[in-house]
């Protein structure tokens, strides 16, 4: 029995629904007209304006710096967490798992307000550091879940084989486990990086001096800036998305036994 026409038509419509808004933005970014829907000529002027916009460029650099630190910290923490969760089946790991899982599902507003009030009451200065701490908290969960999923497909006999061949625990982990987990860790790291770069709500709550990240700048532009420049910025971000999705897919597909 093949899929009926109804699911297929729905799928098609959903894809149109997904991509129509994105398409509109991309088209608008190359159009001389300021308002979408009015036909104009092809132009790259909005991209030039975007590159010359100092606030956007600074925000981008802030986001990349924060993203790099967050990715590093959360990848290490998340991977170790996944290893612990996979290896041990104790009460503690059940709590551990609950805590790892919670930041993924809890609404951003809740995490934002609780971190803000927490930082305020322990007297922690708001700024880049507070953003990094907040981002690592939810990014480590994503890394842990991705790596954990990978670990569950992992063939334990490979480790056994390594031990049988005389490898120490460290050797077995470094030479066998990590290389095989590599793609999973890389996918987790990329996910962490993207999510850190994308986060607005939590960042907005805990931001301080010098911590205007790209999403905060985009938010301000959406409300205050010139629309075509935002279309151009959106197009750049969408293009980056395609590239990173492609990279993650390559990372996860490589070395996957067919």
């Amino acid at each position: 029995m093949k899929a009926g026409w109804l699911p297929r038509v729905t799928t098609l419509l959903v894809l149109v629904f997904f991509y129509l808004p994105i398409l509109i933005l991309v088209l608008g970014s190359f159009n001389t007209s300021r308002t979408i829907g009015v036909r104009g000529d092809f132009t790259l002027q909005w991209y030039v304006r975007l590159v010359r916009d100092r606030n956007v460029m600074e925000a981008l650099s802030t986001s990349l710096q924060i993203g790099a630190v967050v990715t590093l910290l959360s990848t290490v923490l998340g991977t170790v967490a996944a290893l612990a969760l996979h290896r041990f089946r104790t009460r503690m790991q059940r709590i551990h798992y609950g805590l790892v899982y919670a930041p993924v599902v809890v609404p951003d507003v809740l995490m934002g307000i609780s971190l803000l009030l927490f930082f305020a009451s322990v007297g922690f200065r708001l700024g880049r550091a507070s953003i990094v701490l907040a981002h690592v908290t939810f990014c480590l969960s994503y890394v842990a879940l991705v790596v954990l999923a990978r670990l569950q497909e992992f063939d334990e006999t490979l480790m056994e084989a390594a031990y049988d061949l005389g490898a120490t625990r460290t050797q077995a982990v470094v030479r066998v486990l990590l290389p095989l987990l590599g793609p999973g860790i890389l996918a987790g790291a990329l996910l962490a990086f993207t999510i850190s770069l994308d986060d607005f709500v939590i960042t907005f709550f805990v931001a301080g001096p010098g911590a205007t990240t790209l999403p905060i700048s985009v938010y301000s532009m959406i409300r205050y800036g010139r629309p075509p420049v935002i279309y151009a910025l959106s197009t750049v971000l969408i293009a980056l998305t395609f590239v990173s999705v492609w990279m993650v897919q390559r990372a996860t597909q490589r070395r996957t036994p067919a």
Partner: protein
Amino acid sequence: MDGRRGGAGHGMRRREWTMSAPSLGWLVVFFAIPTTYILVLSFRPANPLGGVGEGWSLESWRRVFQPEYYAIYARTAWISGAATAICLLLGTPVAYTMARAPARTRAWLLTLVVVPFWTNFLVRIFAWKVLLHPDGLIRHLFGALRLIGPEVSLLNRPEAVLLVLVYTYLPFAILPIYAAADSFDFGLLEAARDLGASRFSAIVRVFLPGIRRGLGVAALLVLIPALGSYLIPDLVGGTRSVMVGNKITQRAFTDRNWPEAAALASLLTVAVFVPLLAVLRRPGSEAGR
């Protein structure tokens, strides 16, 4: 089952501690403590000059149960509930199609579904602001089809919030349903058809129960963030689209009333964790691995 390999219990315990401590410690400090701490804060009096007053008070809790709030709670519940229902309704056929497609098509579809999920959140909302604009594409289309009169605005209304919520969270719904559908044995559907079931009843009686875990997770992944949405009502909602998330932000950033923000946040936490535990507690669930 305890650890799989290696030394005696004591060594294992120590190893377990070293491996768990970094992430566990981090999450306790930056997640568990702050989340619990807001509950404590909600019992403090507000300080009209900002921050938190001295002593203890039930004022914030009294306030969040005042009738003014009921409309906001009701709105938050219906918008989130409707978004969840629509996402399941649209997500199931998509997941079904994906699961039944040939491998290559399936990989393509999967990528196409994932890309919007990776696209910047603000950009996605902004795109809808453009599309729903009074001079925008959809408005013109609807106008030309005589579906709506010239005075109707598509933006700044709860329905716009609902639409953008569905747009934002639909990929979150499709993926778990697809994962469940992928491991579903479609031979069962054939069998049901052979036994005389109509295509529709085969789907309803056999397929849907077979993927119910996927549906449960999908519902959670839409419902929970939707309950806490703040940005979408802020950007595309109007005077009648304020949700709990907006109220929390307003209390924290404009009204100098942290305890009330904390009380609202605690209330939202409860609203979020009740469905979460209900779904995850069931045997065979992920949390009960």
